[in-house]
């Protein structure tokens, strides 16, 4: 039997697929950029959904990984463009798959360090200490003139993908769609796995998980690292979309945006991040065109969702989740 949630998901996939066609028919290539933003923010939020939705880890530091991914893309591209070697004499690269791998590795390593320390705390302390680490990286980026400091880093040509003209909006959008799809599949596989069950168990009751011989700390650390890796890839894509990376990607506003987006969409729901990202980008575009204070309306909407639709927009459309 097809559930309501599945129906909503299919509709969403069709909507996303319809954007490029509509853009072509209406001759509005800007729609492609909007859809690309949705896919990239959605992917970052999928990472957050693993940590927050399954693991219950409320953090204010995930912009760190988003920004680290962005800087990996920017720094590698700049060095490849200028032909200068980086640290240890390694060359830069303009190849997206390679950049993604580096972004995954670097974000993962940073997360391993931060997570190993921060996951010893919980609740508001965890929020604050992840925020502190993220701000450290933020100020580090600001005070690093070699890579633009406060002004950020522009690279003029988008990084490449073998056999694809990434400078055209449509192929780049399709790359982002593909990675979002991979992210969603990974989320589903994790949720169904023993690891996912243990992660959700640790959220529901740490002691019970420990009593089954699983270290809640280790489970969360793994989730933290996976989350950072996904967010890092999204950051690399975001840098490529704008052909620009700046400390703003590392700032706590970015962490806040991602949390807002996932709460709007539906925490812990498979397509929650996608709905949230879609809604967020549309509001930013439409309301942002009407008034500069569009975030006031976003705030009101968030209030509405928190008060009246605990499952986010997905919850409103598809009813109660199977996992609460």
């Amino acid at each position, binding site marked *: 039997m097809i559930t309501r949630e599945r129906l909503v998901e299919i509709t969403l996939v069709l909507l996303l697929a319809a954007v490029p066609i509509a853009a072509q028919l209406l001759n509005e290539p800007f729609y492609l950029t909007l859809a690309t933003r949705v896919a990239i923010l959605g992917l970052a939020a999928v990472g957050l959904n693993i940590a927050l939705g399954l693991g219950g880890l409320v953090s204010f530091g995930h912009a760190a990984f988003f920004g680290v991914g962005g800087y990996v893309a920017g720094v590698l591209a700049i060095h490849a463009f200028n032909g200068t070697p980086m640290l240890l004499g390694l060359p830069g690269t303009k190849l997206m798959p390679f950049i993604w791998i580096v972004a995954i590795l670097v974000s993962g390593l940073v997360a391993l360090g931060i997570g190993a320390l921060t996951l010893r705390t919980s609740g508001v302390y965890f929020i604050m200490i992840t925020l502190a680490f993220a701000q450290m990286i933020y100020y580090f980026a600001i005070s690093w003139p070699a890579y633009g400091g406060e002004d950020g880093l522009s690279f003029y040509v988008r990084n490449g993908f073998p056999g694809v003209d990434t400078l055209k909006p449509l192929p780049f959008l399709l790359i982002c769609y593909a990675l979002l799809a991979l992210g969603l599949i990974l989320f589903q596989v994790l949720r169904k796995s023993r690891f996912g069950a243990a992660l959700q168990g640790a959220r529901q009751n740490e002691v019970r998980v420990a*009593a089954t011989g699983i270290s809640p700390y280790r489970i969360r650390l793994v989730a933290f690292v996976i989350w950072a890796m996904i967010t890092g890839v999204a950051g690399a894509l975001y840098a490529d979309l704008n052909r620009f990376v700046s400390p703003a990607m590392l700032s706590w506003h970015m962490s806040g945006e991602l949390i807002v987006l996932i709460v709007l969409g539906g925490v812990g729901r498979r397509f929650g991040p996608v709905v949230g990202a879609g809604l967020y980008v549309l509001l930013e575009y439409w309301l942002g065109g009407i008034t500069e204070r569009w975030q006031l309306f976003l705030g009101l909407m968030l209030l509405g969702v928190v008060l009246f639709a605990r499952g986010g927009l997905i919850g409103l459309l598809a009813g109660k989740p199977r996992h609460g």
Partner: protein
Amino acid sequence: MLLEISGLTASYGPVQALFGVDLAVAEGEMLALLGRNGMGKTTTIRALFGLTPASGGRVSFAGREIARLAPHRIAQLGLGLVPEGRRCFPNLTVEENLVVAARPGRWTQASVAELFPRLAERRRQLARTLSGGEQQMLAIGRALMTNPQLLVLDEATEGLAPIIRQDIWAALRALKSGGQAIIVVDKSLSELLPVADRCTILEKGTSVWTGKAGELSPQLQDRYLGV
């Protein structure tokens, strides 16, 4: 001895709850841990699993000192806990509850389903939608999935309907005859004593009597367990 606890003390903050508990369990033996409410049964179990840190004493399990280990390490060494109050993971399915705990050994989802056929019927249901008895079966099944050398049940049948209690006791008898070492806490002496090999009675955080289940005289019961 599989498990030997000696001189175990533990406190909740400034309040000392255990003042020296001694007990031992042999391979394949069922020990009943008895005592009135508030005498330290649950604290003893919590300290055994590292959930309440022991402040003194020794806990030796399968020849290893485990008193200072983290709870998940203790569970990994072969201690399975069925906590008080039928504690499952409410938002996971029956299957997920079992899979989370799985460690290699003779207990698998299939053998748990044999022991508790009702769980097999409700494999895809969320644990929170189960009846109290089914949740207790799931909690026992989950503990068995870790393939413990020693199974510990805190309040095995508390608050369950008589017909379900019979099922639980039947399962425990089956486990015992299969050679499973068990520590069980339960209020119903009439059901517990016929199954248990030995008893240890706690009073005010101290073990005051240990002996064969058959030797627990009405006088002793009245003195330490009557209300």
